[in-house]
Protein backbone atom coordinates (compact mmCIF):
# COMPACT_ATOMS: atom_id res chain seq x y z
CA UNK A 1 0.00 0.00 0.00
CA UNK A 2 1.31 3.53 -0.80
CA UNK A 3 0.35 6.77 0.96
CA UNK A 4 1.52 10.38 1.24
CA UNK A 5 1.17 12.60 4.30
CA UNK A 6 -0.23 16.07 3.61
CA UNK A 7 -0.40 19.08 5.92
CA UNK A 8 -4.02 19.92 5.16
CA UNK A 9 -3.13 23.61 5.32
CA UNK A 10 -5.61 26.02 3.69
CA UNK A 11 -4.62 27.03 0.17
CA UNK A 12 -4.66 30.75 1.05
CA UNK A 13 -1.95 30.43 3.67
CA UNK A 14 1.10 30.53 1.37
CA UNK A 15 0.01 33.40 -0.92
CA UNK A 16 -1.29 35.49 1.98
CA UNK A 17 1.94 35.13 3.94
CA UNK A 18 4.15 35.71 0.89
CA UNK A 19 2.32 38.92 -0.02
CA UNK A 20 2.67 40.19 3.56
CA UNK A 21 6.34 39.18 3.57
CA UNK A 22 6.90 41.13 0.35
CA UNK A 23 5.32 44.22 1.97
CA UNK A 24 7.56 43.73 4.99
CA UNK A 25 10.65 43.46 2.79
CA UNK A 26 9.65 46.65 0.97
CA UNK A 27 9.26 48.73 4.14
CA UNK A 28 12.36 47.23 5.80
CA UNK A 29 14.40 47.98 2.66
CA UNK A 30 13.21 51.61 2.73
CA UNK A 31 14.16 51.93 6.42
CA UNK A 32 17.56 50.33 5.75
CA UNK A 33 18.32 52.72 2.87
CA UNK A 34 17.24 55.70 4.98
CA UNK A 35 19.50 54.46 7.80
CA UNK A 36 22.66 54.29 5.67
CA UNK A 37 22.03 57.12 3.19
CA UNK A 38 21.87 60.47 5.00
CA UNK A 39 20.50 62.06 1.83
CA UNK A 40 17.39 59.89 2.06
CA UNK A 41 15.04 61.07 4.79
CA UNK A 42 11.94 59.12 5.74
CA UNK A 43 8.67 60.56 4.50
CA UNK A 44 7.15 60.90 7.92
CA UNK A 45 5.52 63.46 10.15
CA UNK A 46 7.54 64.91 13.03
CA UNK A 47 4.66 66.46 14.92
CA UNK A 48 3.89 65.49 18.50
CA UNK A 49 4.25 61.80 19.29
CA UNK A 50 4.87 60.85 15.66
CA UNK A 51 8.56 61.21 14.82
CA UNK A 52 10.31 58.62 12.68
CA UNK A 53 13.71 60.32 12.82
CA UNK A 54 13.74 60.35 16.63
CA UNK A 55 13.11 56.60 16.63
CA UNK A 56 15.44 55.57 13.79
CA UNK A 57 18.34 57.61 15.22
CA UNK A 58 17.79 56.63 18.86
CA UNK A 59 20.06 54.39 20.92
CA UNK A 60 17.40 51.70 20.58
CA UNK A 61 17.69 51.74 16.78
CA UNK A 62 20.57 49.26 17.07
CA UNK A 63 20.67 45.87 18.77
CA UNK A 64 24.16 44.45 19.43
CA UNK A 65 25.46 47.12 17.09
CA UNK A 66 23.25 46.01 14.22
CA UNK A 67 20.65 48.49 12.94
CA UNK A 68 17.13 47.28 13.67
CA UNK A 69 16.19 48.08 10.06
CA UNK A 70 18.76 45.55 8.85
CA UNK A 71 17.53 42.95 11.35
CA UNK A 72 13.99 43.51 10.11
CA UNK A 73 15.05 43.07 6.50
CA UNK A 74 16.93 39.87 7.36
CA UNK A 75 13.89 38.60 9.30
CA UNK A 76 11.54 39.05 6.36
CA UNK A 77 13.98 37.54 3.85
CA UNK A 78 14.46 34.58 6.18
CA UNK A 79 10.70 34.19 6.35
CA UNK A 80 10.33 33.41 2.64
CA UNK A 81 11.30 29.68 2.80
CA UNK A 82 8.85 29.06 5.65
CA UNK A 83 5.97 30.36 3.59
CA UNK A 84 6.64 28.82 0.19
CA UNK A 85 3.71 26.64 -1.02
CA UNK A 86 5.86 23.52 -0.77
CA UNK A 87 6.58 24.32 2.88
CA UNK A 88 2.90 24.83 3.65
CA UNK A 89 2.04 21.51 1.93
CA UNK A 90 4.57 19.66 4.05
CA UNK A 91 3.29 17.82 7.10
CA UNK A 92 6.77 17.67 8.61
CA UNK A 93 6.36 18.85 12.22
CA UNK A 94 9.79 20.52 12.09
CA UNK A 95 8.51 22.86 9.37
CA UNK A 96 5.09 23.26 10.98
CA UNK A 97 6.42 24.23 14.42
CA UNK A 98 9.58 25.89 13.11
CA UNK A 99 7.39 28.33 11.17
CA UNK A 100 5.37 29.08 14.29
CA UNK A 101 8.50 29.63 16.41
CA UNK A 102 10.00 31.88 13.72
CA UNK A 103 6.82 33.98 13.69
CA UNK A 104 6.73 34.06 17.49
CA UNK A 105 10.34 35.28 17.65
CA UNK A 106 9.32 38.15 15.39
CA UNK A 107 6.43 39.00 17.71
CA UNK A 108 8.79 38.97 20.68
CA UNK A 109 11.07 41.45 18.93
CA UNK A 110 8.08 43.60 17.97
CA UNK A 111 7.06 43.73 21.66
CA UNK A 112 10.55 45.00 22.54
CA UNK A 113 10.47 47.63 19.77
CA UNK A 114 6.99 48.83 20.74
CA UNK A 115 8.24 49.08 24.34
CA UNK A 116 11.28 51.08 23.15
CA UNK A 117 9.08 53.48 21.15
CA UNK A 118 6.22 53.92 23.62
CA UNK A 119 8.08 53.83 26.94
CA UNK A 120 11.75 54.74 26.35
CA UNK A 121 11.80 57.04 23.30
CA UNK A 122 8.19 58.20 23.68
CA UNK A 123 7.93 58.67 19.92
CA UNK A 124 6.22 56.57 17.30
CA UNK A 125 7.75 55.80 13.91
CA UNK A 126 4.94 55.16 11.45
CA UNK A 127 7.10 53.12 9.07
CA UNK A 128 8.27 50.97 11.98
CA UNK A 129 4.66 50.55 13.06
CA UNK A 130 3.89 49.37 9.53
CA UNK A 131 6.55 46.67 9.92
CA UNK A 132 5.11 45.70 13.31
CA UNK A 133 1.61 45.36 11.87
CA UNK A 134 2.87 43.26 8.95
CA UNK A 135 4.77 41.00 11.39
CA UNK A 136 1.64 40.64 13.53
CA UNK A 137 -0.55 39.85 10.51
CA UNK A 138 1.88 37.20 9.28
CA UNK A 139 1.88 35.67 12.75
CA UNK A 140 -1.94 35.68 12.92
CA UNK A 141 -2.27 34.09 9.47
CA UNK A 142 0.38 31.51 10.34
CA UNK A 143 -1.27 30.59 13.63
CA UNK A 144 -4.76 30.20 12.20
CA UNK A 145 -3.60 28.39 9.05
CA UNK A 146 -1.59 26.00 11.21
CA UNK A 147 -4.60 25.48 13.47
CA UNK A 148 -6.77 24.59 10.48
CA UNK A 149 -4.16 22.22 9.07
CA UNK A 150 -4.77 18.67 10.26
CA UNK A 151 -2.11 16.38 8.75
CA UNK A 152 -3.65 13.38 7.02
CA UNK A 153 -2.42 10.28 5.22
CA UNK A 154 -3.69 10.27 1.66
CA UNK A 155 -3.90 6.64 0.52
CA UNK A 156 -4.42 5.34 -2.98
CA UNK A 157 -8.24 5.14 -3.39
CA UNK A 158 -8.55 1.53 -4.62
CA UNK A 159 -6.14 0.21 -2.07
CA UNK A 160 -7.89 2.15 0.63
CA UNK A 161 -11.23 0.68 -0.29
CA UNK A 162 -9.80 -2.83 -0.22
CA UNK A 163 -8.20 -2.27 3.16
CA UNK A 164 -11.31 -0.83 4.70
CA UNK A 165 -13.51 -3.54 3.27
CA UNK A 166 -11.15 -6.19 4.55
CA UNK A 167 -11.31 -4.58 7.95
CA UNK A 168 -15.09 -4.56 7.77
CA UNK A 169 -15.20 -8.25 6.90
CA UNK A 170 -13.17 -9.12 9.94
Amino acid at each position, binding site marked *: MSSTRQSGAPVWAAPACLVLTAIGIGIATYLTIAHYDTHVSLVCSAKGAIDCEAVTTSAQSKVFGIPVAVLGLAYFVGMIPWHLPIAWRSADPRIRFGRLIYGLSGIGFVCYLVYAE*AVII*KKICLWCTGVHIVTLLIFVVTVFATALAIPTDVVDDDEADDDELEEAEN
Partner: protein
Amino acid sequence: MADGRDDKGRTSTKYAAKKAATERIAAQRAAQQRADRKRNLLYAGGGVVLVIVVIGGIVLAGLSSKKSTSTVHPVLPASSTVTNAITAAVPLTSTTPNLSTVTGPPKALTGAALTSTSGKPEVLYIGAEYCPYCGVTRWPLAVALSRFGTFSNLETTYSAANDSAGPNTPTLDFRHANYKSDYVDFTGIEYEDGAQKVIGTLTTEQNSLFNSVGGGAFPFIDFGGKWAQSGASYATATLAGLTPEAVAGQLTDASSKVGSSVQASADVFTAAICSMDGGKPASVCTSTGVVTATTALASLATASK
Protein backbone atom coordinates in the same frame (compact mmCIF):
# COMPACT_ATOMS: atom_id res chain seq x y z
CA MET B 1 -28.88 -21.64 -10.34
CA ALA B 2 -29.63 -21.74 -6.63
CA ASP B 3 -25.89 -21.59 -5.81
CA GLY B 4 -25.48 -18.66 -8.21
CA ARG B 5 -28.28 -16.67 -6.52
CA ASP B 6 -26.72 -17.44 -3.12
CA ASP B 7 -23.34 -16.24 -4.34
CA LYS B 8 -24.85 -13.03 -5.73
CA GLY B 9 -26.85 -12.48 -2.56
CA ARG B 10 -23.81 -13.01 -0.35
CA THR B 11 -21.71 -10.71 -2.54
CA SER B 12 -24.38 -8.02 -2.45
CA THR B 13 -24.79 -8.24 1.33
CA LYS B 14 -21.02 -8.31 1.85
CA TYR B 15 -20.56 -5.24 -0.39
CA ALA B 16 -23.27 -3.29 1.42
CA ALA B 17 -21.70 -4.11 4.78
CA LYS B 18 -18.28 -3.04 3.53
CA LYS B 19 -19.66 0.18 2.10
CA ALA B 20 -21.45 0.99 5.35
CA ALA B 21 -18.26 0.30 7.29
CA THR B 22 -16.27 2.54 4.97
CA GLU B 23 -18.77 5.37 5.36
CA ARG B 24 -18.81 4.91 9.11
CA ILE B 25 -15.02 5.13 9.27
CA ALA B 26 -14.98 8.19 7.02
CA ALA B 27 -17.61 9.88 9.17
CA GLN B 28 -15.62 9.11 12.32
CA ARG B 29 -12.47 10.56 10.76
CA ALA B 30 -14.30 13.69 9.62
CA ALA B 31 -15.78 14.18 13.07
CA GLN B 32 -12.36 13.73 14.66
CA GLN B 33 -10.84 16.30 12.26
CA ARG B 34 -13.61 18.79 13.01
CA ALA B 35 -13.01 18.37 16.73
CA ASP B 36 -9.23 18.79 16.26
CA ARG B 37 -9.71 21.93 14.17
CA LYS B 38 -12.12 23.41 16.71
CA ARG B 39 -9.66 22.79 19.55
CA ASN B 40 -6.73 24.18 17.53
CA LEU B 41 -8.69 27.31 16.58
CA LEU B 42 -9.48 27.95 20.24
CA TYR B 43 -5.78 27.74 21.10
CA ALA B 44 -4.87 29.93 18.10
CA GLY B 45 -7.45 32.57 18.98
CA GLY B 46 -6.29 32.59 22.59
CA GLY B 47 -2.66 32.98 21.53
CA VAL B 48 -3.41 35.85 19.15
CA VAL B 49 -5.55 37.64 21.75
CA LEU B 50 -2.72 37.25 24.28
CA VAL B 51 -0.19 38.80 21.87
CA ILE B 52 -2.51 41.74 21.10
CA VAL B 53 -3.17 42.31 24.82
CA VAL B 54 0.58 42.35 25.56
CA ILE B 55 1.32 44.87 22.77
CA GLY B 56 -1.68 47.00 23.76
CA GLY B 57 -0.51 46.96 27.38
CA ILE B 58 2.94 48.23 26.37
CA VAL B 59 1.43 51.07 24.34
CA LEU B 60 -0.89 52.04 27.22
CA ALA B 61 2.06 52.02 29.63
CA GLY B 62 3.91 54.41 27.33
CA LEU B 63 0.91 56.72 26.97
CA SER B 64 0.29 56.92 30.71
CA SER B 65 3.94 57.67 31.53
CA LYS B 66 4.08 60.40 28.88
CA LYS B 67 1.42 62.52 30.57
CA SER B 68 3.34 62.77 33.82
CA THR B 69 6.61 64.14 32.42
CA SER B 70 5.56 67.18 30.41
CA THR B 71 7.80 70.26 31.00
CA VAL B 72 7.50 73.65 29.35
CA HIS B 73 10.40 76.10 29.32
CA PRO B 74 9.71 79.84 29.36
CA VAL B 75 10.34 81.91 26.23
CA LEU B 76 12.45 84.92 27.18
CA PRO B 77 13.90 87.90 25.25
CA ALA B 78 17.33 87.05 23.88
CA SER B 79 20.17 88.49 25.94
CA SER B 80 22.67 90.89 24.40
CA THR B 81 25.23 88.07 24.57
CA VAL B 82 23.10 86.06 22.15
CA THR B 83 22.18 88.87 19.75
CA ASN B 84 25.77 90.16 19.67
CA ALA B 85 27.10 86.68 18.94
CA ILE B 86 24.72 86.29 16.00
CA THR B 87 25.81 89.65 14.64
CA ALA B 88 29.45 88.61 15.05
CA ALA B 89 28.83 85.31 13.21
CA VAL B 90 27.23 87.02 10.19
CA PRO B 91 30.44 88.01 8.34
CA LEU B 92 32.12 84.63 8.84
CA THR B 93 31.86 83.52 5.23
CA SER B 94 35.52 83.55 4.23
CA THR B 95 36.36 80.01 5.34
CA THR B 96 35.40 76.74 3.69
CA PRO B 97 32.51 75.24 5.66
CA ASN B 98 32.71 71.69 7.00
CA LEU B 99 29.66 70.41 5.15
CA SER B 100 30.02 66.92 6.65
CA THR B 101 28.12 68.17 9.70
CA VAL B 102 25.13 69.25 7.61
CA THR B 103 22.11 66.95 7.76
CA GLY B 104 18.89 67.23 5.83
CA PRO B 105 20.15 68.86 3.55
CA PRO B 106 17.88 71.23 1.54
CA LYS B 107 16.21 69.69 -1.52
CA ALA B 108 15.60 71.50 -4.80
CA LEU B 109 12.00 72.42 -5.57
CA THR B 110 10.51 72.85 -9.03
CA GLY B 111 7.14 74.42 -8.18
CA ALA B 112 6.06 78.04 -8.20
CA ALA B 113 8.23 80.66 -6.52
CA LEU B 114 7.22 81.64 -2.99
CA THR B 115 6.85 85.40 -2.63
CA SER B 116 5.50 87.62 0.11
CA THR B 117 2.78 90.25 -0.30
CA SER B 118 5.52 92.85 -0.87
CA GLY B 119 6.66 90.88 -3.94
CA LYS B 120 10.01 89.89 -2.47
CA PRO B 121 11.11 86.25 -2.33
CA GLU B 122 10.01 84.71 0.94
CA VAL B 123 11.69 82.38 3.40
CA LEU B 124 8.98 80.44 5.24
CA TYR B 125 9.86 78.69 8.49
CA ILE B 126 7.35 76.46 10.32
CA GLY B 127 8.49 74.90 13.59
CA ALA B 128 7.52 74.19 17.17
CA GLU B 129 9.02 75.23 20.48
CA TYR B 130 9.10 71.72 21.96
CA CYS B 131 10.93 70.38 18.89
CA PRO B 132 14.70 69.77 19.32
CA TYR B 133 15.28 69.62 15.53
CA CYS B 134 13.83 73.12 15.30
CA GLY B 135 16.04 74.06 18.25
CA VAL B 136 19.30 73.35 16.46
CA THR B 137 18.07 74.66 13.08
CA ARG B 138 17.00 78.14 14.26
CA TRP B 139 20.61 79.15 15.05
CA PRO B 140 22.03 78.83 11.51
CA LEU B 141 18.79 80.14 10.00
CA ALA B 142 19.04 83.28 12.13
CA VAL B 143 22.71 83.72 11.19
CA ALA B 144 21.98 83.19 7.48
CA LEU B 145 19.02 85.60 7.40
CA SER B 146 21.06 88.18 9.33
CA ARG B 147 23.40 88.30 6.31
CA PHE B 148 20.50 89.72 4.28
CA GLY B 149 18.67 91.81 6.89
CA THR B 150 18.10 92.48 10.58
CA PHE B 151 16.19 90.66 13.30
CA SER B 152 14.53 92.29 16.26
CA ASN B 153 12.63 90.80 19.21
CA LEU B 154 14.45 87.48 18.99
CA GLU B 155 13.81 85.29 22.01
CA THR B 156 15.47 82.23 23.52
CA THR B 157 14.10 79.06 25.07
CA TYR B 158 14.74 75.30 25.21
CA SER B 159 13.08 72.35 23.50
CA ALA B 160 10.90 70.10 25.66
CA ALA B 161 12.64 68.28 28.49
CA ASN B 162 10.81 65.05 27.75
CA ASP B 163 11.69 64.89 24.05
CA SER B 164 14.27 62.11 23.85
CA ALA B 165 15.48 63.29 20.41
CA GLY B 166 17.25 66.20 22.14
CA PRO B 167 15.86 67.22 25.52
CA ASN B 168 16.40 70.83 26.65
CA THR B 169 18.06 71.92 23.41
CA PRO B 170 18.96 75.63 23.81
CA THR B 171 17.52 77.69 21.00
CA LEU B 172 16.24 80.94 19.59
CA ASP B 173 12.52 81.54 19.15
CA PHE B 174 10.78 83.25 16.22
CA ARG B 175 7.35 83.59 17.89
CA HIS B 176 7.59 87.37 18.33
CA ALA B 177 10.58 88.09 16.08
CA ASN B 178 10.51 90.76 13.38
CA TYR B 179 12.74 90.76 10.32
CA LYS B 180 13.56 93.48 7.82
CA SER B 181 15.56 93.05 4.62
CA ASP B 182 15.96 94.75 1.27
CA TYR B 183 16.27 91.36 -0.46
CA VAL B 184 13.93 88.81 1.11
CA ASP B 185 11.03 88.54 3.54
CA PHE B 186 10.92 86.06 6.38
CA THR B 187 7.85 84.43 7.88
CA GLY B 188 8.67 82.51 11.04
CA ILE B 189 5.83 80.48 12.52
CA GLU B 190 6.12 78.60 15.81
CA TYR B 191 3.11 76.36 15.30
CA GLU B 192 3.15 74.65 18.71
CA ASP B 193 4.53 75.66 22.10
CA GLY B 194 6.70 73.63 24.45
CA ALA B 195 3.72 71.56 25.57
CA GLN B 196 2.71 70.80 21.98
CA LYS B 197 -0.27 73.13 22.25
CA VAL B 198 -1.09 74.84 18.95
CA ILE B 199 -0.19 78.55 19.14
CA GLY B 200 0.36 79.41 15.48
CA THR B 201 -1.86 79.63 12.44
CA LEU B 202 -1.08 78.58 8.90
CA THR B 203 -2.67 79.94 5.76
CA THR B 204 -4.10 77.43 3.32
CA GLU B 205 -1.02 77.82 1.11
CA GLN B 206 1.41 77.45 4.02
CA ASN B 207 -0.43 74.38 5.28
CA SER B 208 -0.36 72.88 1.80
CA LEU B 209 3.41 73.47 1.45
CA PHE B 210 4.06 72.17 4.97
CA ASN B 211 2.27 68.90 4.27
CA SER B 212 3.03 68.31 0.59
CA VAL B 213 6.65 69.53 0.50
CA GLY B 214 7.66 69.18 4.14
CA GLY B 215 5.77 65.98 4.87
CA GLY B 216 4.17 67.62 7.91
CA ALA B 217 7.47 67.47 9.83
CA PHE B 218 9.00 70.18 12.04
CA PRO B 219 10.99 72.16 11.16
CA PHE B 220 10.06 73.01 7.59
CA ILE B 221 11.83 75.81 5.73
CA ASP B 222 10.82 76.85 2.21
CA PHE B 223 13.43 79.06 0.54
CA GLY B 224 11.33 80.97 -1.97
CA GLY B 225 9.98 77.79 -3.57
CA LYS B 226 13.54 76.99 -4.72
CA TRP B 227 14.80 74.86 -1.85
CA ALA B 228 13.19 73.16 1.13
CA GLN B 229 14.72 71.99 4.38
CA SER B 230 12.80 69.35 6.31
CA GLY B 231 14.18 68.27 9.67
CA ALA B 232 17.29 69.21 11.62
CA SER B 233 20.22 70.83 9.79
CA TYR B 234 22.79 69.18 12.12
CA ALA B 235 22.78 66.71 15.01
CA THR B 236 20.76 67.72 18.07
CA ALA B 237 23.47 66.25 20.31
CA THR B 238 25.75 69.14 19.26
CA LEU B 239 23.96 71.51 21.64
CA ALA B 240 23.25 69.02 24.43
CA GLY B 241 23.67 70.41 27.93
CA LEU B 242 24.32 74.00 26.80
CA THR B 243 22.52 77.27 27.53
CA PRO B 244 21.65 79.78 24.77
CA GLU B 245 24.50 81.96 26.05
CA ALA B 246 26.94 79.06 25.91
CA VAL B 247 25.93 78.36 22.31
CA ALA B 248 26.31 82.04 21.50
CA GLY B 249 29.79 81.97 23.01
CA GLN B 250 30.90 79.33 20.49
CA LEU B 251 29.15 80.67 17.38
CA THR B 252 32.22 82.46 16.09
CA ASP B 253 34.65 79.70 17.06
CA ALA B 254 35.03 77.62 13.89
CA SER B 255 37.23 75.16 15.72
CA SER B 256 34.42 74.24 18.11
CA LYS B 257 31.83 71.63 17.20
CA VAL B 258 29.02 74.12 17.82
CA GLY B 259 30.64 76.89 15.78
CA SER B 260 31.58 74.72 12.80
CA SER B 261 28.17 73.01 12.69
CA VAL B 262 26.20 76.27 12.89
CA GLN B 263 28.45 78.03 10.38
CA ALA B 264 28.25 75.18 7.85
CA SER B 265 24.45 75.07 8.06
CA ALA B 266 24.30 78.87 7.92
CA ASP B 267 26.39 78.85 4.72
CA VAL B 268 24.08 76.24 3.16
CA PHE B 269 21.01 78.30 4.10
CA THR B 270 22.74 81.44 2.81
CA ALA B 271 23.41 79.71 -0.52
CA ALA B 272 19.73 78.75 -0.72
CA ILE B 273 18.69 82.37 -0.06
CA CYS B 274 21.19 83.65 -2.67
CA SER B 275 19.56 81.36 -5.23
CA MET B 276 16.15 82.97 -4.58
CA ASP B 277 17.11 86.65 -4.62
CA GLY B 278 19.43 86.67 -7.66
CA GLY B 279 22.67 86.44 -5.70
CA LYS B 280 22.35 89.70 -3.76
CA PRO B 281 24.24 91.08 -1.97
CA ALA B 282 27.29 89.96 -3.92
CA SER B 283 29.54 90.41 -0.90
CA VAL B 284 27.64 87.56 0.75
CA CYS B 285 26.77 85.38 -2.21
CA THR B 286 30.28 85.34 -3.73
CA SER B 287 32.09 84.69 -0.46
CA THR B 288 34.18 81.52 -0.15
CA GLY B 289 31.90 79.74 2.29
CA VAL B 290 28.71 80.49 0.39
CA VAL B 291 30.21 79.60 -3.00
CA THR B 292 31.30 76.25 -1.57
CA ALA B 293 27.82 75.67 -0.18
CA THR B 294 26.25 76.77 -3.48
CA THR B 295 28.33 74.17 -5.34
CA ALA B 296 27.24 71.53 -2.83
CA LEU B 297 23.59 72.51 -3.29
CA ALA B 298 23.98 72.40 -7.09
CA SER B 299 25.38 68.88 -6.93
CA LEU B 300 22.45 67.88 -4.75
CA ALA B 301 20.02 69.28 -7.30
CA THR B 302 21.81 67.40 -10.09
CA ALA B 303 21.78 64.17 -8.11
CA SER B 304 18.06 64.43 -7.45
CA LYS B 305 17.18 64.82 -11.14
